């Protein structure tokens, strides 16, 4: 990768398509509106813009890395292919019955999300495997043929195959695929033992169905994109960012499109990890706040934390359980409905509530003057002096403070007997508290103490709120990198080639079988390495080994990282010691006398991470030139303070600015409260640290 000198990162988001070109150490970027009907149009447009800025030709591009929300959107908007599921007899309704619970207990009119495939598109066959992987009932080829004929008559474009315990024994799923391939060679097939070989039928079946559902759409899009780029004179290979924070080939992406879900946010986490590496920071909290949501991710040792399952397409106030689970390797993030456009109201308990409803871009927050009557977070930020009404988005949108005040008074202040300023303070504090709570819970779930962390903030609204979050979380240092508006696309260019293979196999430490472990991990390593090799024929490939362990009887596994030596020469004592070490760290104390078991095994193959040069940090020099002053509300002391205004572009390396100060640029404003000082570091980051 390091040999490529001209690289293009492309991130298709919900509103904008971001394009970043790196060439000989220089970065050129642009944002163009996403073109929903033909997303490749925006890419071509954006590409030509950055090529023109850099003055190079399409044929000179050495590598393109692409991430997209198209897969996620197709799932959310149910725009996938006509798809059928073939599953085990007796289990036709697994994807519909979910967990048999209500994700919101206090709503009598609750409706559960519809499964991706209605019941008439779900078919069963008799073959059955047991929990040891042994065949209980043989698969009957004639029966499969009859089912496939029935499906054929329905004009199906894609078929998912998900059978009970197939993660232990995939032969029945492979037989079904073989029959489909013979009878319906043009229909796409996805089998659960390949897409997501993990125990728990609901998650696995839903994942294979999601993969099948978006496969034709994504394959066709990726094919078109390749053709268009070729026509424009691009001759390099194209790679895709996956949700686990690495890149895969366009062919793998077309086969496993479900792995592309969440590729944009994954790019953001990789971006933050790269900043962390420049500063040698081992404990980082990335904070990305946009118009409708905020995302928070823990980055330890410059590596974003990953997980095996996540939920996509939440339908009910971002509530856990209201979406559908996808079990694939993914960067672990919390996402809450809190952004600049999030709307505020007062509930029956006279409590201020913010989000997840958003003002969107039409009518937008009240201050846009487009008829919005409900106050958004942006309105509160404006009233509190955090935004300059005449210099929002580089002056392109004029903000109306009076409209904000009116909305805040009408919808919040009047009920609570507060003026507009008190209401704005309340709204800002509630949204910041919501985000801080999400970060705290996430940290506790991972056994981490945030006071040891540094925050890295990006996304349009994050710099306005990040320092207050730091105050609430006891975090002393905040970095706001350059290029924060196109952070995900820059992150794509920093990601290694990687692929994680995993499998569910139960093993108690009392039945520890070293030979079996070695063979299992060797297989997984070969599988994962194979994927990476298709992307990069020469680089060394590293393998990262992880097993998920718990006390027998518990329902929650914790990931245990193993060295290659520990993995390839498995020793029961080492496994036990590693588990007890990590368990004690998370939960305080180990439990005596319980057997321990391993449930999931995983190997992540990756090219070596890009060598990152440590920057030489400055402790600051001269004060930055002050362009203006204005009163900005200081949440910690609950009053307005006279604050300086500094242009980010006027800050030379080492320039200092003491809080309270607003550091302004076209895309956003960094609010540095009275408790903190800011220094511009050599890489362009604004480094905001606690005074004294």
């Amino acid at each position, binding site marked *: 990768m390091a040999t490529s000198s001209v690289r293009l990162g492309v991130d298709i988001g919900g509103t904008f398509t971001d394009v970043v070109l790196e060439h000989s150490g220089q970065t050129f970027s642009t944002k163009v509106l996403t073109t929903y009907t033909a997303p490749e149009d925006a890419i071509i447009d954006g590409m030509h813009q950055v090529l023109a800025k850099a003055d190079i030709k399409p044929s000179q591009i050495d590598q393109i890395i692409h991430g997209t929300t198209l897969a996620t959107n197709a799932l959310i908007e149910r725009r996938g292919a006509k798809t059928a599921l073939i599953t085990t*007899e007796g*289990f036709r*309704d697994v994807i*519909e*019955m979910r*967990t*048999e*619970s*209500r994700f919101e*207990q*206090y*709503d*009598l*009119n609750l*409706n*559960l999300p519809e499964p991706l495939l209605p*019941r*008439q598109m779900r078919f069963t066959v008799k073959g059955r495997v047991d*929990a040891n992987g042994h065949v209980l009932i043989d698969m009957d080829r004639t029966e499969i043929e009859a089912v496939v004929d029935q499906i054929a*008559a329905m*004009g199906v474009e894609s078929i998912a195959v998900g059978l*009970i*315990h197939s993660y232990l024994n995939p032969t029945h799923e492979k037989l079904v695929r073989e029959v489909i391939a013979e009878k319906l060679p043009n229909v796409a097939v996805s089998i659960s033992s390949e897409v997501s070989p993990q*125990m*728990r*039928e*609901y*998650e696995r079946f839903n994942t294979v169905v999601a993969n099948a559902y978006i496969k034709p759409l994504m394959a066709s899009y990726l094919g078109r994109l390749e053709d268009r780029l070729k026509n424009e004179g691009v001759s390099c290979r194209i790679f895709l960012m996956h949700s686990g924070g690495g890149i895969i080939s366009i062919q793998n992406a077309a086969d496993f499109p479900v792995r592309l879900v969440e590729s944009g946010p994954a790019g953001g986490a990789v971006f933050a990890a790269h900043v962390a590496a420049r500063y040698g920071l081992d404990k980082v909290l990335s904070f990305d706040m946009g118009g409708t949501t905020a995302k928070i991710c823990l980055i330890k040792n410059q590596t974003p934390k990953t997980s095996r399952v996540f939920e996509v397409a939440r339908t009910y106030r971002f509530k856990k359980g209201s979406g559908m689970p996808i079990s694939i390797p993914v960067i672990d993030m919390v996402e809450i409905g809190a952004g600049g456009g999030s709307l505020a109201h007062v*509930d*029956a*308990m*006279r*409590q201020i509530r913010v989000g997840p409803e958003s003002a969107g871009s039409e009518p937008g927050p009240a201050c846009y003057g487009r008829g919005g009557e409900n106050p958004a977070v942006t309105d509160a930020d404006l009233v509190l002096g955090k935004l300059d009404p005449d210099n929002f988005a580089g002056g392109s949108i004029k903000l109306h403070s009076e409209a904000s005040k009116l909305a805040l008074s009408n919808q919040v202040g009047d009920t*609570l*007997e507060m*003026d507009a300023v*008190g209401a704005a*303070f*309340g709204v800002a*504090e*509630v949204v910041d*508290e*919501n985000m801080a*709570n999400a970060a*705290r*819970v996430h940290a506790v*779930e991972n056994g981490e103490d945030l006071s040891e962390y540094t925050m890295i903030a990006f996304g349009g609204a994050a710099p306005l709120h990040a320092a207050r979050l730091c105050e*609430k979380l006891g975090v002393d240092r905040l970095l706001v990198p350059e290029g924060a508006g196109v952070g995900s696309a820059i992150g794509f260019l920093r990601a290694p080639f990687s692929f994680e293979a995993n499998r569910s196999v*139960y093993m108690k430490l009392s039945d520890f079988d070293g030979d079996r472990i070695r063979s299992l991990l060797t297989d997984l390593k070969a599988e994962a390495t194979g994927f990476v090799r298709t992307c990069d024929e020469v680089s060394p490939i590293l393998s990262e080994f992880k097993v998920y362990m718990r*006390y027998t*009887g*518990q*329902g*929650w596994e914790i990931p245990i990282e193993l060295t290659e030596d520990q993995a390839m020469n498995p020793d029961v004592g080492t496994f036990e010691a590693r588990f007890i070490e990590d368990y004690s760290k998370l*939960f*305080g104390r180990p*439990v*005596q006398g*319980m057997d321990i078991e391993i449930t999931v095994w995983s190997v992540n193959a990756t090219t070596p991470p890009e060598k990152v040069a440590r920057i030489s940090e400055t402790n600051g020099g001269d004060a930055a030139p002050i362009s203006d002053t204005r009163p900005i509300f200081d949440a910690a002391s*609950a009053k307005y303070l006279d604050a300086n205004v500094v242009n980010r572009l006027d800050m030379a390396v080492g320039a200092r600015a003491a809080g309270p100060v607003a550091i302004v640029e076209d895309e956003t404003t960094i609010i540095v409260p009275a408790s903190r000082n800011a220094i511009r570091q050599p890489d362009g980051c604004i480094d905001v640290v606690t005074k004294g």
Partner: protein
Amino acid sequence: MTNEHSNVAYQVMWNRLISVVEEQAQALVRTAFSTSVREAGDLSAGVYDVGGQMLAQAVTGTPGHVNAMADAVAHFIRRIGRPNICEGDIYITNDPWEGTGHLHDITMVTPSFHNGTHVGFFACTAHIVDIGGRGFGADAHSVHEEGLYIPIMKFADKGTVDETLTRIIRGNVREPDQLIGDVYALATCNEIGHRRLIEMMNEFDLVDLAGIAEFILDNSRRATIERIAALPQQSATGEMTVDGFDSPITLKVKVSVEGDKIVSDFTGTTGLDKKGINCPLVYTKAYACYALKVAIAPEIPNNAASLAPFEIVAPENSIVNALHPAPVALRHIVGHFVPDAVFDAFDKIVPGLVPAEGAGCLCNFQVSLRPRTDAPAPINARRSEVLTFNSGGSGARPDHDGLNATAFPSGVMTMPIEATEHAGPVIIWRKELRPDSGGAGKTRGGLGQYMEVGAQEGHEFDIQAMFDRVDHPARGRRGGGAGAPTTIVQDDGGTMNGKGKQFVAHGRKVVMAFPGGAGYGDPSERSVDLIKRDLARGYISAKTAAQDYNLSVAEIDEVQAAVAKGEMI
């Protein structure tokens, strides 16, 4: 700070306390051994002021703990005695009457001290795997047979754990390591809450919780009373009969809206059962209160003030107010039916708000597997206990169909069958929706489900059935039809009972059909599009479409032809 800004600070603190208890509950879910906690969310956690008033409670899998938790700390204060409450103490009980309704729930309370001053309490409850006695089932004749009873007492005194108590616990239960593990998990979860509370008190410079407590309780009380005051000031009576163990049980309740409170009076309800399906008042109160709150004030968080206006009256030693020493292990069966009985009354006060009857109690069963005894068993055959949670259909709502195979009023989750089959040599042959089981109506009842259970080759088993609605299916509302009843038989046709421990021989399977929810409104008013959709999906058969909904033969043929061609309906 001006008054306005302290109001903002209180807003933030209330949010924080709710987050603290959610975090406290999450810590428990991750470390508990009990299946019902980790898989099903059968737990609770809360924070209290120094007077024992609950300020915030985590929203977890079961409403059954709602009021029990609110009342519990007051019992602890009374039993331990204020002068004996010291920093470093941890208290414990599983008293069904002063805790949460049966010996299988352990409640632990930890006083919180800030700068040497007692400022509040944290409490949490979890359903544990085993507490000795006869095991989890309805077979006991008194609470003495149901297991070890731990009165309210100190588990730790000024930081020192009572080793005598832990030895007694260990000596009386089947899974001592797991249970002690769970006890420590409960203690840790309170500790996590305590640490976060102290952080908050430091951040906001609080010396006690009096101010924030008043803010939370005043606002919650006012909001709840506003909702109650807006209701018609009337009384109405509801009634429902269910199977019970050996003889049917009638739940009778008079709901009265009286100004600033709602009283639910269970006078007229059946007396105690000989078997352990009796329900202590605290658990009845929880579900009655849940039913009313979910109907009229769903978004008001649970705390002392928002729960206080819901009053419960029940005659002593009726099945909904079982006194010591009645057996109460399976108190959930009656408890889960309480909301349907309350809804029957409330629907007469505010029509068009509450659903028709649903499956009600969870369709749980436990299988005890062992090597076959009728012939030589294979060498690898083993003993194992496997518990599963399953749900029937919920009742149709005025404007929405009932939910298919979804728990109500309980909020617990089922387990993946792949996980269940790893827990022991059991085979789940079928777990899928049960067509035609949802009661017909303008809105249809939720579908129940089929399950078939057998054992791996070489094993036989006992099944402990905990099902109801065999003889008393869910009743429809406003012209809606009844849901389908529970059925249970062996695959060779051998009959079985809805409740109790029953033997299943080698090679046999148990075939179960769990009940559907009832319908709401006249089926003739159901939209034809929805009837066709239900037929296309197979939620209803062609026969039901014709009989219950008057779909013509031509329309039925048209739907079936469209399905075969893959057209979406």
